[in-house]
């Protein structure tokens, strides 16, 4: 683990109660969905994670109760490290605060997650379908596990 990542994780853990997971040398931080905006802002401004490579989601129905995980892949150009941020959200009217004001690249990525998982991003300026036709009437959210 690189020094910067180590420092970041210790400093984050000192302030918030976050779980940290490691698999194959990749570090994942679990955040409360309510805190996502402040947390991302902190990562961007204080820990140099200046690029959000990806926003996606995974559906764990039926084995886990907050069924969705929303996943952010952050990258620090300066320190050349990656960090994965995850948040668990409930499947009943799933919604999450948008981070597109913090990372502009999240704009389309969040639209895609909205399209394919049905997760609403509150505060998103342009939450339309991304890849499916706008009048799509089949299964509403394609990547949900039934």
């Amino acid at each position, binding site marked *: 683990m690189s020094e910067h990542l180590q420092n970041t994780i210790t400093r984050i853990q000192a302030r918030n109660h976050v779980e940290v997971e490691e*698999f*194959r040398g*990749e570090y*994942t931080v679990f955040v409360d969905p309510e805190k996502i905006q402040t947390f991302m802002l902190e990562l961007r401004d204080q820990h140099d994670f*200046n*690029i*959000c*490579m*990806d926003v*996606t989601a*995974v559906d764990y129905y039926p084995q886990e109760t907050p069924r969705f995980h929303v*996943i952010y*892949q952050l990258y620090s*150009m300066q320190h*050349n490290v*990656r960090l*994965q941020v995850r948040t668990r959200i409930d499947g009943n009217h799933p919604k999450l605060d948008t981070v597109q004001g913090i*990372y*502009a*690249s999240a*704009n*389309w990525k969040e639209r*895609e997650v909205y399209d*394919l998982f049905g997760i609403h991003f509150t505060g998103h*300026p*342009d939450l339309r*379908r*991304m*890849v*499916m*036709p*706008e*009048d799509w009437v089949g299964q509403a959210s*394609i*990547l949900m596990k039934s």
Partner: protein
Amino acid sequence: MTDIREVSVDELRHLVSDRAMSGETMLLNMGPQHPSTHGVLRLLLELDGEVVVNVIPDIGFLHTGVEKTAESKNYQQAEVMTDRLDYLNPMGNNLTYCLAVEKLTELDVPPRAQAIRVILAELQRISSHLLWLGTSALDLGAMSMFLYCFRERELVLNIFELVSGQRMMTTFIRPGGLWRDVPVEFEATVRDFLKAMPRRIKEYDDLLEKNEIFLDRTKGIGILTKEDCFQYGLSGPVIRGSGVAHDLRKKQPYSGYDLYDFDIPTHPEGDVYARYRVRVEEMTQSLRIIEQALNKLPYGPVRSNNRKYVPPPRSEIGVSMEALIHHFKLWTEGFTPPAGHVYVATESPRGELGVYMESDGTARPYRVHLVTPTFVNLQAVPVMSRKHYIADLIGIVGSIDIVLGDADR
């Protein structure tokens, strides 16, 4: 045939300026069938006369559902679909997918396989840049470039056909190594290509560098600043054209890229011309990498010996009971990596191509998500094209090297 859905301007109110509401600016639809959108991109343009006020890209016309379909295939089968995502970079897609599977299963790849992977990925990068050069020069009015670039692209496709039997969708790189070793003619063919290519690249330079029209239509057009690049998470030649020396082959080397000596071409201007220069210079660097890899191409196996994940060679199946069982199990059930998730990123010709793969311990991936460069880079088109003429929009869209299969997945 479904009824035509009528869209009123009110639905687009949050996307266009107030001037569009009063009819002062014009809303114009471009695409999905338009010769210079390189496929099926739709752009909704807001124009003030000839000047672009805003661009609203609309993608998804090539949405293929790869991520969902991969969940119902096993790991070997899902790889076949990655070829067809970014159809100008099948080898690179295979490589990224295989690196993700290998990271998940902790498979080791023999050095010979790694070197051949690098050679093939770099050949693919050259062929992709050639196609980009041909088509985007064609968009800007240089017809002959298209014919010249495709001439050299055929040489690369011939090499792919030699090693795998297919011109484009090869699926030659497999988890744990390669499908098979390259034929004996491989080295000589690649060396012929290496010998021919530098002169051809100079030919392209001669054709375009003195072409006044091409220079006028690229210099100072579609400027992107470094800050924009970081905000939008851009990568690849677009970010290197804005003066950021970011290349995952150097920064986070994979598949043995750290063994080779090469430079990252950057240009600080951030315009269409800078991106064009970066791509042309990258071709020369790719040739350097191929030559080094070919010079120290080690001998040995091209597939891992871990029989849990990699099928045994054909010669063993006839004589070994275990080999037969492994082969049967692998091609009927597939293999089962341990539960967990990985994110692997490589440098595709267009930028950072990432694979997020999650396994739940069964033979099928629980979730495969592809982080594709075109999707990310397309977001910056509105930023680049504001206040330019509509004719320059063609050059700008071309300059980020869009492949819609890559964007829509």
